[in-house]
């Protein structure tokens, strides 16, 4: 637009002031990027096309209560269920009790229900053939510097081994990689061992599983399948509760914290102070340029175009700072991740956050510029030129 250079020149008239204001805006949107990344990561957990087809069955009594393995064949016969797998939590720590790991003991067909997890086919076969074989997520491999073929010792805090100790040995036979980059953090830290090896070795677990995962063929009737599964165990000592995987994760997260509320509150405070700060800058800027704006009107610029120019200036200011801030947040993720060697992984800034961020930038720019723009519009040429 031909007026662009006018608006740009107006913005950078007082360079120091503009740069300082930009810096504050960058800080605000850096924070927004980081917090919104966290919010969307939690909101999206379990929300993918593959996840929609999976049902999670746990004990209705308690989340740490186990279910009998015998349930499996009955689950497979439920209408709409096309595959069933099971798993049990293991946990474990490597070298230091503070290095808690995400290890689960799974049925041999577990990965069939998780197409978004990728393992090299040869490594998968090797895992199936190795009793104490383990598949490890690529982030874990990088973090501890493990290699395929290596045997690692893990210490369990819950399950003693067949020798009575809490020490377990596993042979790493393959690497787990996520198919889509966004799910990276989750699957990259996963470690899979064999359920059979686990159940045989630990004395207190007899044909019991932590939870079942079932895949339904018709997503639209998944609720009916869930109810049917729970009906199987109703009024028995092993009552179950079946939900879609997504619902199960959402319920879990909601108990941890209402992340949306926390993030929203913080950003509310941040943007409120930003509004005040930027509003003050814009008000000052317009006040200083009263005679210039009057001259524009004398030349023939209409009041409305002056209004538009001031609004454009304030929107440009906020968008400039906001894009820099969000960009910084997006760039920070991989940098921090690389520097901490995978220990700290900041969530990526997805397109949703960018869209929301840009919308907020424009809204804030308009809000901030509204009053000064109206002032500029209503400027009386004669009074302004006379210095009144």
């Amino acid at each position, binding site marked *: 637009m031909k007026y662009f250079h006018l608006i740009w020149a107006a913005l950078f008239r007082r360079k120091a002031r503009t740069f300082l204001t930009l810096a*504050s805006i960058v800080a605000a949107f850096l924070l927004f990027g980081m917090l919104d990344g966290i919010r969307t990561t939690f909101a999206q957990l379990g929300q993918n096309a593959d996840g929609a087809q999976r049902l999670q069955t746990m004990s209705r009594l308690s989340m740490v209560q186990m279910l009998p393995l015998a349930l499996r064949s009955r689950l497979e016969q439920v209408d709409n269920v096309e595959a069933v797998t099971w798993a049990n939590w293991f946990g474990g720590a490597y070298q230091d009790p503070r290095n808690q790991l995400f290890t689960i003991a799974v049925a041999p067909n577990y990965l069939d229900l998780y197409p978004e997890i990728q393992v090299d086919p040869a490594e998968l076969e090797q895992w199936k053939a190795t009793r104490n074989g383990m598949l490890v997520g690529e982030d874990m491999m990088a973090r501890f510097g493990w290699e395929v073929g290596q045997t690692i010792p893990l210490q369990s805090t819950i399950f003693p081994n067949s020798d009575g100790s809490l020490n377990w040995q596993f042979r790493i036979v393959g690497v787990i990689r996520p198919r889509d980059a966004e799910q990276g953090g989750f699957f990259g830290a996963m470690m899979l061992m064999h359920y059979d090896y686990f159940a045989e070795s630990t004395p207190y677990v007899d044909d019991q599983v932590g939870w079942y995962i079932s895949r339904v063929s018709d997503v639209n009737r998944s609720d009916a399948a869930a109810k049917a599964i729970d009906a199987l165990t109703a009024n028995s000592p092993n009552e179950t509760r079946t939900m879609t995987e997504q619902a199960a994760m959402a319920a879990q997260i909601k108990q941890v914290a209402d992340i949306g509320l926390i993030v929203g509150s913080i950003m509310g405070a941040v943007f409120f102070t930003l509004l005040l700060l930027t509003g003050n800058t814009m008000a000052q800027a317009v006040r200083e340029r009263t005679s210039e704006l009057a001259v524009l009107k004398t030349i023939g610029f209409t009041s409305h175009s002056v209004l538009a120019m001031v609004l454009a200036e304030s929107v440009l200011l906020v968008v400039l700072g906001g894009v820099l801030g969000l960009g910084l947040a997006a760039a920070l993720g991989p940098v921090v991740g690389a520097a901490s060697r995978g220990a700290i992984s900041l969530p990526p800034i997805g397109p949703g956050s960018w869209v929301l961020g840009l919308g907020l930038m424009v809204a804030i720019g308009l809000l901030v510029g509204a009053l000064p723009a109206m002032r500029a519009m209503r400027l009386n040429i004669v009074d302004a030129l006379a210095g009144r």
Partner: protein
Amino acid sequence: MNLMKTLLRGLGMVLLLIAFLAVWVLLPWYGALALAVALALWMALTRTGRQAASVTWVGVGTLRQRLGASSVVVVGIAGVVGVLVALLAMAEGYRHTVSSAGSEDVAIVLRGGSSAELMSVLSRDEILAIERAPQIARDAQGRPLASAELVVSANVPRRDGEEGSVTLRGVGEMAWAVRPGVRLVDGRRFETGRRELVVGRGAQRQFQGLEPGNEVQLGNERWTVVGVFESGDATESEMWADAEVVGATYRRGSSRASLYARLTAPEAFNAFKATLAADPRLQVDADTTLGYFSSQSRTLTTVLRVIGIVVGSIMAIGAVFGALNTMFATVAARAREIATLRAIGFRGLPVVVAVMLETMLLALLGGLLGGILSWLVFNGYTASTLAGGVASLSFEFRVSPQLLWEGLKWALAIGFVGGLFPAVRAATLPVTDALRAM
């Protein structure tokens, strides 16, 4: 040459800044008070000090004209302090709730290598062996004040409709004697052998229908709530019932998870630990409940504090730029006034002190505003989280005086950084230019 001077001066200021911040971080409140008193004395008694006081006075007098700009500093800093205090209060509330459940004269014994009660299993024999330790206090009948307890997580509907997990603790009659902080406030204790629950106030707040007389469905069995207890700590988020019944329902048999023992005295703990270690049949870990709960809360508390500080820091950086902006503009607006003072004979230092004082006064205002707002809104605000990833823990935000002081410190630090450079600019702007301009 001029560039060199400016660079050196800039470097000097940055070093001064870092030195100040380093000292400031460590300063306790009485240290700051002493500094303030020293400053006041300097301004009252020395000549330069009195000059600084005059310049400040002039500045404060014209503050009304700069209300808009000054409010930017105040509100910006209030925002930082408000958010910081709120987040740290969340961390502090959680930490306080969990650790105040512990004391130095009550010990907890778990199976060796267990990181939490939920993971620990103690057999009947182990429990009997532990109870024989002489350091455990005895009651009037000579029975050891030891409570073997079973901990499971139960699925119960929450008040918002979703299913949640609550800690169900199976206890014997000794539990009440071992934990004196737990007081029955409604209804009665459960009867042995029956499916009866005594629920904590925190659990009652969060979950549906936990009133005395109501029934709760656990699995496929119905239990009755018969009483409510309070304790002012994490225990309030639990439900208590007869250990035998819980053990049967959750198929744990006669094993228990942990043993709580009241010791004869806090000093007896080391001897207690040694006694247990000496017994070859026992593979257990013992800790005071204070030590145990403190370490349980450590991770989440640290995470929350880190989040609070990171968010606060980024906001603080934004506020510093806002303060710099405002104060540079202020100095520019008052250039003529300041130049006149300097032409009259006021030296550079009083001007610097005056501008910084003004900035820090605004910052102090902002810090107080933010702290008080946070205290009003958040102190006592109840929240809950999933403790140990397994069961719900309800806690209150805690805006302690220590936290308010921390917030105030941040505010003053922002004021210092935001005021230093404009102050130096005010003291060094060329007098003749400023007098001639406009």
